[in-house]
């Protein structure tokens, strides 16, 4: 028994129209100052301006590019270390017992709390931000690879063993592909957390990148700049998630035959 509401899209349109309508109306009616809330059109206008005129030293897309490269560095590092570690933890009980207590402690430290050490150890240029992204993205990589490896059918591992495969081949050809759906799901979470950690690091200590644009916008009392940056950050995050979601769908299709 399913309730019938009729077509739902008018509700969606109404929601969007209302959201932007109220926003524009509040600004147009002069209820709040431009220094507090710019109108949607002003934000759009500001975005176009920042693409053509340097702000805080660079053009908007140059800032985005430098942030994205840092993200790629930290995220890849987290995946390259975290996934094999998780897989090995799923295979070897001893390693699991050794890593688990340390990991549990690390998990409770908010990623951004690593910013001071990251800055002291690796500076605020490239190394520091990469470490902050790494600490944000590491945990889901490990946890999902571990869970995935534990869920791989024992028979498959035994079949590999009895057909003469060594530990390296078992890891590469049985555990990794078997855990892949879970790993990719973990990577999506990691990417979201890593991207957000980078923005945090750029707000706090780094003096370039899209997060820094926000800091500058804030101190110049230019909320339209801040909101432009928020919009772009959301867009890039969405793009990253879209790519990983595509990979996830491909993996599932191949593995599960859907």
């Amino acid at each position, binding site marked *: 028994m399913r309730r019938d509401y009729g077509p739902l899209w008018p509700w969606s349109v109404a929601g*969007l129209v209302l959201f932007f309508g109220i926003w524009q109306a509040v600004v147009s009616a002069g209820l709040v100052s431009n220094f507090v809330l710019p109108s949607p059109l002003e934000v759009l206008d500001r975005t176009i301006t920042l693409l053509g005129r340097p702000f805080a030293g660079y053009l908007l897309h140059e800032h985005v590019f430098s942030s994205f490269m840092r993200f790629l560095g930290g995220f890849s590092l987290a995946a390259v270390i975290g996934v094999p570690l998780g897989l090995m933890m799923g295979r070897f009980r001893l390693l699991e017992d050794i890593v688990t207590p340390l990991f549990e402690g690390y998990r409770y430290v*908010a990623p951004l709390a690593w910013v001071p050490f990251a*800055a*002291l150890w690796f500076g605020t240029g490239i190394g520091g931000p990469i470490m902050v992204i790494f600490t944000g993205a590491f945990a889901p990589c490990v946890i999902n690879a571990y869970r995935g490896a534990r869920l791989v059918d024992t028979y498959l591992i035994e079949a590999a063993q009895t057909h003469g495969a060594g530990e390296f081949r078992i890891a590469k050809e049985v555990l990794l592909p078997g855990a892949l759906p879970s790993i990719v799901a973990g990577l999506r979470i990691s990417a979201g957390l890593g991207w957000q*950690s980078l*923005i945090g690091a750029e*707000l706090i200590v780094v003096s370039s990148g899209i997060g820094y644009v926000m800091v500058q916008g804030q101190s110049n009392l230019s*909320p339209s700049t801040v909101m432009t940056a928020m919009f772009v950050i959301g867009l890039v995050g969405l793009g990253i*998630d879209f790519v990983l979601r595509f990979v996830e769908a491909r993996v599932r299709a191949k593995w599960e035959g859907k």
Partner: protein
Amino acid sequence: MDKRTPWGRVVTRSSITGVITVAVVIALWFFLTSVTGIVGQYRFPSPQDFLASFVRLATEGYAGGTLIEQTLQSLWLVACGFFTAIVIGVPLGFAMGYDRRIEAFLNPVFLLLRPIPPLAWIPLAIVWLGLSDGSKILVIFVAAFVPSVINTFTGVRNVDRTLVEAAKVHGAGTSRLISEVYLPDAAPMIFTGLRLSLQASWTTLVAAELVGAFLGLGRVLSTAYRDINTAMILVAMVVIAIAGAFTTILLAQVEKRVIKWRTT
């Protein structure tokens, strides 16, 4: 094989390995800092420095307050942001899960705002509310709001249809349907959302206080960073972790009380 201690706790091979690991790490920490000085104090503090800084924070205070004051300030902000978020977020998620029109109405706006990481709201919050408590509560609210809405929504949307129909057949009205079928069946999912919300609250609080604050654990962290006081940085990190763990355990206890019928 497993053995029982006089306290009734089971001692497993894993827990023994765990204790040994932690002991080795602490010994290594001693060795690298105090004993050999391979790692200098401007990189990482020695255990003695760490303890001394902890005592200093607890007694005379640091960065404008003692351990208790700084911790209470942070806990207070997390509590304000978290509770505001769930008081609004859970009913909203519930409504979206219960009625598809409400979902259709709110979802596009939600989809538009969701990709923006909570931390990206910090500058806007500062523009609006300055470095006050209000701006931090606002950011924590944004961070905690999203997971509580999404998970409540998912929990309610996936309520067992047969249970709903069984209740209707036995004459339950809308209010009984909500309180006796939808809420209990969605409760585990709602709590998952709350846990994620709480986690996000702490992450965001730390970031917000690092960006600018007059008091709080993030302030301790940023002041210690400026002073290149690595011992105090570590103390702040540990206290933040313990405070976060404490609230998480508290929430888990509440969950256990509320969801009594669950076996796992």
